[in-house]
């Protein structure tokens, strides 16, 4: 989706606002939203791609206006209802529907340390030969899907060089919409700054993007 979230290469967004000695959370409610999202993700009713997409579909002015954890909160509420963990009526009333059995939370405090090292859980141990090798010249495809994608606009149609093969990962474009994992190789691809931004860019500089097989053509 060509949304406001895909902002790589935009200009005039203002200076970078740096906060010295910044706290991890700026208010207790932010930390609770953060923790609720991680804990309820343990039901495996959604994935990170789907969560990212809930933020991407926010109206552009809201996306820029509300804080990061407000985006998380709205995304969490969306997924909880859409994926059936909470009904719309419960979300409105704030109380469980009468007669519903209490569930057992899958993530308990003792399980937290073991759960964190594989939180992203996106690699897949499946066979499948890579379409590209390190050193190979490639061109990013130029799709304009209305759904989720991790191929930024600024790289579409551009030529690059495969730097390394990271292995097989789930494919966000389908996974975000619960249309299957479509596991495939992900490569680090080097794009010269001049290829992306034109002749005024410094000659040696480069941007590396992680690209799925389905984002690339041989060139």
């Amino acid at each position, binding site marked *: 989706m060509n949304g406001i979230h895909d902002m790589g290469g935009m*200009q005039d*967004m203002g200076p970078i606002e740096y906060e010295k000695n910044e706290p991890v959370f700026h208010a207790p409610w932010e930390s609770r939203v*953060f923790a609720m999202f991680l804990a309820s993700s343990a039901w495996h009713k959604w994935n990170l791609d789907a969560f990212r997409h809930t933020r991407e579909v926010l109206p552009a002015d809201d996306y820029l*206006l509300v804080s990061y954890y407000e985006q998380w909160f709205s995304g969490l509420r969306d997924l909880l*209802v859409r994926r059936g963990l909470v009904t719309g009526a419960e979300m409105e009333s704030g109380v469980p529907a009468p007669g519903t059995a209490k*569930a057992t939370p899958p993530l308990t405090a003792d399980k937290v340390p073991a759960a964190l090292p594989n939180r992203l859980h996106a690699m897949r141990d499946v066979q499948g030969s890579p379409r590209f090798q390190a050193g190979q010249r490639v061109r990013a495809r130029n799709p304009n899907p209305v759904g989720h994608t991790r191929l930024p606009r600024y790289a579409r149609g551009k030529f690059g060089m495969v730097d390394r093969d990271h292995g097989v990962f789930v494919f966000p474009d389908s996974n975000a919409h619960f249309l299957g994992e479509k596991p495939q190789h*992900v490569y680090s691809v080097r794009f010269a700054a001049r290829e992306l931004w034109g002749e005024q860019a410094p000659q040696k500089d*480069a941007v*590396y993007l992680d690209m799925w097989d389905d984002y690339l053509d041989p060139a």
Partner: protein
Amino acid sequence: MTTNRRDFLTAAVTAAGAALTPELSHAHDHEHQHDHEHQVVPSDPALRVKALESLLVEKGLVDRAALDTLVDTYENKIGPRNGARVVARAWVDPAYKARLLADANDAMADFGYLSKQGDRMVVVENTSSVHNLIVCTLCSCYPWPVLGLPPVWYKSAPYRSRSVIDPRGVLREFGLDLPADIEVRVWDSTAELRYLVLPERPAGTEHLSEEQLAALVTRDSMVGVTKVAPPQAGVSA
């Protein structure tokens, strides 16, 4: 859910007291930053978040002790000191550095920060001729296991938008003016690989222990927006 989401957002904006005129985009940006700086969090989100937590606990969807543990973990246990220890080890131990660059998961597992089979991490090395910078233009991907949760500026539109098109300008905002002959490599975290910069070891630190070196390493240097400064006079052992 669209209605609910809009309601929430509208309520949050109203409570923040932001009198917004759409044509005044800079005023709009200013109000946004203002909220972050002064932490004027509308009471409305706090109440709504509390209500959702009660509902999820009552339904048995989340365990309150698990929430407390998650918050405590990222507030107090997992943060840039993790990454600093990895960097310091790489500075003093060439064999460790080689492992770190070849297979960061394997090397970081020594400290218990990552599992060999878990989420993938990649370490990129700054040298006298190459400077690396990490960004996530599409959202907020950041190496949690070694740096903790990202600061607001890392997730902000100014940093995300300009890091790829004008990394040298971004670095100048952080006080780092790189010579033209240095190659700048920007790593846009578009997939589930997480990047960490291995900064250059500053001059004048030959006599420092691994622990003293770790104390010099900052979060910002491991994102690549600054270099590690040499020890201040009187601080070094």
